[in-house]
């Protein structure tokens, strides 16, 4: 009997892409070589999967094999003197945080949700709100154990198999299965953060605030109103935060307190309701100025308190559009992108703007580069939405920017190749037995 079982349709986080897989859920590292070698069913391509938070098709392998990695969540070693932690690749970030906060440590880089695996974080070379200070997670990875379909098991480090190491960081799981990962955690003195919200009037003011904050605030991010037209376009709330110097070291309760029980109907999501949300959010935040103290999980993972929030966008699902544009063109490009979204009447609840610092990303396919990153959610309205994103692609390409594969389910092959000039070097490291919906699409 094959260890792989046919599943129902598996949906990615954006819920537009989905389909059945042949899935196996190994509980032991020693099972992986045999699973990779299994010829049934029909030598289908394989992809290791985690907690399914990628928005598009980079975490899907419809019709192929999926290795569900979340049961491989054992810790292997931790040295409190150096902060080095080695664990199996399926460890969730939420588990890691629950482990390390009481011990006075924190992951050096976290994405916007704690419901991701360590393997997923490395495969997407994730960034956080502290990118200007810490760079991407890949900079903190000291070793990766990689199982390949030829039966080899390699330990990759920045100096050992260095090419494959840099292909695997941000490599979207295409270079093999990461079985173990070692990262360097950072010390913290408190589970609290000092936080400040500052309203700003336009995109220029955002960049001024970002420049002014980066020296003394480790975490910065902005919510931006992408619905309002004209003078209000680009207004937003700039949030900056830093670890508190003292306070309790308790991770706080894990898990969601609320859940989105149903798919919201499509009519609930229109330009009026989004406009209203943006207006109310702006007014509420703009009133609350000054510094406050908050649990770091609340600052860094605001949406984790609502499980399955993606259902807010209805049964049709959503797209997230996240791009980065280089510093010289950043201001103009961001304004042009916001204008496109606003003109199309396709504003989103969650529009996020952040600057990336100059720290180089270590992966051949890493998304972050110096400049500004803008992320917008669009409910899936079919052709209309796709056409808008194509218009936005032209702005991004012109500016010399690129799109984030973890969020993408629709960029063209040309858009991918222009954004990731290292793609040929990367492709040479792809394990021939591995693929994903994303990879088949952009290589087509």
């Amino acid at each position: 009997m094959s260890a792989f079982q046919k599943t129902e349709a598996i949906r990615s986080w954006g819920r537009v892409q989905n389909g059945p897989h042949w899935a196996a859920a190994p509980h032991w590292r020693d099972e992986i070589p045999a699973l990779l070698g299994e010829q049934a069913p029909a030598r289908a391509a394989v992809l290791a999967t985690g907690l399914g938070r990628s928005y598009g098709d980079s975490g899907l392998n419809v019709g192929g094999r999926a290795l569900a990695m979340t049961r491989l969540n054992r810790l292997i070693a931790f040295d409190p003197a150096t902060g080095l932690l080695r664990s199996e690749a399926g460890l969730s970030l939420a588990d890691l945080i629950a482990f390390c906060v009481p011990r006075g440590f924190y992951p050096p880089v976290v994405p916007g949700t704690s419901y991701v695996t360590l393997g997923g974080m490395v495969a997407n070379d994730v960034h956080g709100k502290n990118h200007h200070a810490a760079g991407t997670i890949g900079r903190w990875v000291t070793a990766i154990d990689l199982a390949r379909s030829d039966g080899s098991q390699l330990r990759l480090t920045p100096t050992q198999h260095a090419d494959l190491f840099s292909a695997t960081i941000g490599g979207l799981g295409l270079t093999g299965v990461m079985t173990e990962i070692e990262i360097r955690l950072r010390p913290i003195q408190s589970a609290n953060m000092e936080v400040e919200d500052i309203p700003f009037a336009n995109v220029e003011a955002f960049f001024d605030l970002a420049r002014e904050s980066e020296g003394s605030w480790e975490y910065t991010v902005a919510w931006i109103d992408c619905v309002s037209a004209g003078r209000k376009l680009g207004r937003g709330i700039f949030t900056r935060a830093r670890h508190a110097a003292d306070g309790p070291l308790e991770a706080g309760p894990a898990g969601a307190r609320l859940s989105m029980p149903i798919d919201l109907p499509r009519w609930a999501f229109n330009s009026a309701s989004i406009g209203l949300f943006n207006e109310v959010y702006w007014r509420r935040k703009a009133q609350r100025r000054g510094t406050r103290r908050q649990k770091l999980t609340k600052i860094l993972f605001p949406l984790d308190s609502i499980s399955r929030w993606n259902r807010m966008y209805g049964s049709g699902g959503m797209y997230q559009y996240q791009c980065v544009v280089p510093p010289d063109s950043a201001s103009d490009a961001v304004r042009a992108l916001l204008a496109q979204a606003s003109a199309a009447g396709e504003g989103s609840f969650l529009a996020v703007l952040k600057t990336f610092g100059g720290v180089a990303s270590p992966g051949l396919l890493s998304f972050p580069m110096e400049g500004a990153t803008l992320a917008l959610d669009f409910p899936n309205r079919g052709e209309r939405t796709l056409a808008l994103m194509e218009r936005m692609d032209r702005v991004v390409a012109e500016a010399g920017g690129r799109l984030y594969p973890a969020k993408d389910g629709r960029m063209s092959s040309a858009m991918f190749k222009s954004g990731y000039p290292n793609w040929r070097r990367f492709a040479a490291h792809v394990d021939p037995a591995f693929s994903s919906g994303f990879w088949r699409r952009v290589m087509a």
Partner: protein
Amino acid sequence: MTSNVTARTALILGATSAIAEAVARLFAAEGMRLLLVGRNAGRLQAIASDLTVRGAAAVETEAQDLMTQAEIHPLFDRLAAKLGGRVDYVLICHGYLGDQALAARDQAEADRILAANFSSAALWTLAAAGHLRRQGYGSLVVLGSVAGDRGRRANFVYGAAKAGIATLCEGVAHDFAAGGPKAVVIKIGPTDTPMTAGFDKRGPLWSKPEQVAAVIRRAADGSRPVVYAPGFWRWIMMVIRAIPAPIFNKMSI
């Protein structure tokens, strides 16, 4: 972290089962000293490293096939001696779900299901009970199943073995009732573990090993001789046991 000498101890038999591992993580977080017994040395080591990092005062492993031991009592005493002779918790977790359809026609499969879930589990339970009685304290936790509460065509060989081990454990608990040590059988509902790989696990009745482990951890310090995990299975099984045979026979559950 508690020091090695004063830390409480647990002996976990069948330690590579997913539920045993989840309970062991709770023990480790309390800084306990643990001895893990199972067949596969490499897998025991993977768990031991994890438990050590998570805060266990010490973790030892012993690779033994629990099914093929002729002299269980002296082996149990030797394992207890590895914990310094002091055993606060014993968990008996080894088991084998098997294939009901195959067991119906193949003696070896039926024998394996009965031996793993009843004979072997029972002999280890008796050895552990003897040790705890001599020791005068300690908590004996035996993993049973809701499948033991009523025979169903889908898995009655496994169910019969689990019914047997539950009755045996209840007897031990009765024997312990005078004071000192205690015993509890945990009747576990369907759980998403490697044992149930290949089942369709959608639906509200499937539990995660972590949920079941939390119930087991509480039950180990509780006073009830029979505990359902999760607790709602107590009520479901009460209903299922009460269904008259003519109706039950028409149900495909």
